[in-house]
């Protein structure tokens, strides 16, 4: 199945399950969880279901397009459902059938893996789903977001689209994935990988990025004060990306790293707090 068809099939499947097909959010982020559709979506008691592709940037994982399995930018397919149906595992497995994987002919294992994001103050209970040994999905019941105990619980299903597609096309190199009949993943991405690797590892302006981190942090406080949680949260995402860029350059000491993570977590907490106050004041903890 072509890369683009895989996305289409997943969209089709999850729309049928009642998900709102929101779109990728236009700010760099490390994972689909950062998209406001998830970050804010899980905080309140209102039912909410969404699906979307999220381009995810991990500057430190970039390999100049030379590693067959590692990318500095890749695509996650993100599904969140609150509250989840009691058959959610089966519903998820059926999505694999929908993209052409016959479950009776493969080995599926759910391997314990409790996801957490220290920068978002988020954690959950769940698994990595292994398809014939390859990890294709992270399946998580969120328990906390922005350090808030969540209720009702949201399930987050995150597919690694490249992995899944490599599996379905039997490719050993991500760049060989066929995007459509004529174009490969490499055609679209390999030059981008090279250039962004050079940027992330050699030419990013560390001092400037550090300054920007401080600026974003001050903006969060300023914007929260004005009751503007959406713009404030944009700043959190930007700060988080700045942090990832600094990490890629290996310039952060262990203590500094912990400190920056805490600062991002505190910013995220402020946004979540305001969001809850405005949208569901009775939930305020």
């Amino acid at each position: 199945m072509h890369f683009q068809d895989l996305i289409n099939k997943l969209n089709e499947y999850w729309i049928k399950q009642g998900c709102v097909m929101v779109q990728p959010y236009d700010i760099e982020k490390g994972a689909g969880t950062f998209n406001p559709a998830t970050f804010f979506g899980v905080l309140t008691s209102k039912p909410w279901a969404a699906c979307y592709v999220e381009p995810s940037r991990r500057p430190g994982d970039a390999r100049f397009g030379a590693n067959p399995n590692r990318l500095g930018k890749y695509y996650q397919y993100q599904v969140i459902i609150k509250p989840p149906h009691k058959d959610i595992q089966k519903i998820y497995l059926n999505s694999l059938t929908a993209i052409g994987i016959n479950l009776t002919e493969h080995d599926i294992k759910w391997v314990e893996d409790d996801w957490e994001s220290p920068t978002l103050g988020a954690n959950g209970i769940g698994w990595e789903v292994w398809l014939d040994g390859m990890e294709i999905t992270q399946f998580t019941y969120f328990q906390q977001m922005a350090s808030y105990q969540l209720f009702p619980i949201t399930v987050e299903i995150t597919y690694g689209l490249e992995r899944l597609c490599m599996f379905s096309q039997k490719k050993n190199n991500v760049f060989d994935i066929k995007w459509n009949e004529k174009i490969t993943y490499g055609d679209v991405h390999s030059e981008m990988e090279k250039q962004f690797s050079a940027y992330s590892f050699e030419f990013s302006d560390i001092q400037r990025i550090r300054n920007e981190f401080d600026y974003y942090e001050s903006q969060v406080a300023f914007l929260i004060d004005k009751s503007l949680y959406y713009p404030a949260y944009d700043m959190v995402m930007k700060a988080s990306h700045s942090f990832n860029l600094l990490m890629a350059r290996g310039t952060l000491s262990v203590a500094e790293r912990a400190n920056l993570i805490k600062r991002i977590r505190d910013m995220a907490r402020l946004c979540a707090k305001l969001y809850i106050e405005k949208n569901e004041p009775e939930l305020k903890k």
Partner: protein
Amino acid sequence: MSKNDVLFELTVENIPQRFVVGAKEQLLKKVTELMSKSRLEFGEIKVYATYRRLTVVIKDVSSKTEKIVEKIYGPSARLLKDEKGNFTKAAEGFARSCGVKVESLKIETVEKKGDVICAEKIINAQKAEKVLGSVFEQAVKELEFPKNMIWEDSKFVFARPIRNILAIYGNKIIPLNIAGVKSSKNTFTSYFTGFKSISVRTPQDYMKTLEKNHVIVDDLKRKNSIIRIIEGVEAFSKCVVNRDEDLIEENLYLCEHPSGVVVKFPSEFLKLPKELLNLVMKKQLKFFSCYDKKGNMLPFFLGIRDGVSKGHKNVEEGFLNVFKARCSDAIFFYDTDMKTDISVFEEKLKKLLFQKELGTMYDKTLRVKSVLEAVMRELNIEKKELSDASSFIYYDLVSSVVNEFSELEGIMNYYYASKYGVADEEIKKAISEIYLPNSSDSKLPSNIYSAVLSLSHKIDTLVGDFIIGAIPSGSNDPHGLRRYAVGIFRIIKENDIPLSLLKLIEFSYNSYPEEIKKKKDFNVLKAELLDFIYQRIESIFETDRVSSDILNSVKNIFIREGDIIRIIKRIKTLVEIKNKEDFRNISLLYKRLKNICKDFEKTEVQESLFEKEEEKILYDYACRIEPSVNKFCKDMEYLKAVNEITGLTEPLENFFKNVMVMTENEDVKKNRLALLKKIYNLFSDISDISQIVY
């Protein structure tokens, strides 16, 4: 009364393997307890588990509880009614608390209490289904897991979401409700048969019905099926499969229907160290590595798949691909390391902090080397290659392989040895075994060079942390100092190394620079550290059921002398003789001795001051045995030494019977105390015997 079997099956979304064993034990215990209190008759209880089922089967449960009258005894009969014949407040309160009418209270005579008020509470017969429902609700509610979650409206707390409950008594449903899930007669098959709903007619049908649908519920049967797969592969491919118990257990709870998949891989991967390959297979992929008779790894592995044989080719291909991807990473790291010049490793060590206040790993290397050399001199070990090779012991910590697979720290030094220019097989082992033993039952360093190098490495961390006050407390032991202390104990014990810890600590302390040393006085450090090590020794012997009085009685000797070999001999001797009549007698006398002369400074005994025959006899006896006691103690023949001292029982008893120690003549009194002190001290190199309790 008619009897029937009970079946209870809780379907849970994939419970992690590490939770299952504990859950099974708890479930068996709780159900047994609750059933015993239920007043139902019942037979054998069995618990089974897969990664998505917790199943309880109870044999021969009676169909109902009998109606009974329970008697509850209350306050004295006098309090039933007042002078006017009205029920008292106390009687009313008692009736209320028992749930009976006050008029129904009776008076009964109870042994030792006399006449008391008695309430007769009628407990009606209950149907088994009703009782069983609350038994299971209660048992499940009380299960504890290492980590919990919530997922539904009632906020029920459990390891993973509960999705189905099958609960039947004979062919009747046991009504119950847990986390919003109601019980029924249905369960579900596994994912590879589409989570099909199937109905279970009776408890006896359960296993068979599920087996027909490719679910083996019985853990033991499933485990045997994995073992048979392994045996099949061994017979067919003439190989030895790595029967790692943890790995078997892990696969046991990742499959409801295990099928074996043997996957051949290109032999070029075998150039990787076998520990590394095994780790990739075991930890990252849950596969079993295969070896020839000589222990060489073979170019295929066994994976266990959850399902039937349909689509085996797919699974085989998938397993191979994921293996290749993981190994390609490993090969990349290994090749990088093999190409890296060792001067790069040294440079990196100079930047890698050991601990903030204790310098870099390079500093640690130099210290360990100096301790090692001192230990070798002390033990008359001559091996220049060992002290040369000790410079490389931490190089692998900065290698890419260990960076990625931290479990291989140490082990990789064996493979990098050629880079270091180390060729001697024993020395190669020595530099790869410094972290051994790394658990209470792991293997020890395999030769004496390994042993002394491992000791030097461990003592450096212990001494360093104790100097800066990073001493473990409670569960907080981030550097694993307790494990290190146990390691030192085991290495010295198993290799019978005649090395006093006093020396070892001193060598290590002296290897630290002045500005670090001045943070803690040597004598304080020594006492703290030996005390810490002794606590570990105590807990080791406590698991062997050595009583704490014996351990207390030799503690001060250990802290004074720091000798592990001697302390073990002393403890063993005391365990052997503690309950012998002779020893018991002498130890009681010694308790008395200690009370009398504990504050008395040792002085010479003067025979001229003896006034009584018993003093003289006791003194002569003590003088006679003293040299042999000392010699036996020196030679660690503590049993013989004790036997000598036991001979004192009679003269000592006679002394106490006929001689008054606290006499008015000060000189005579002092002389008698000096005599008793002399007797007392005979035991001082064996144990503080007065601490032994009976």
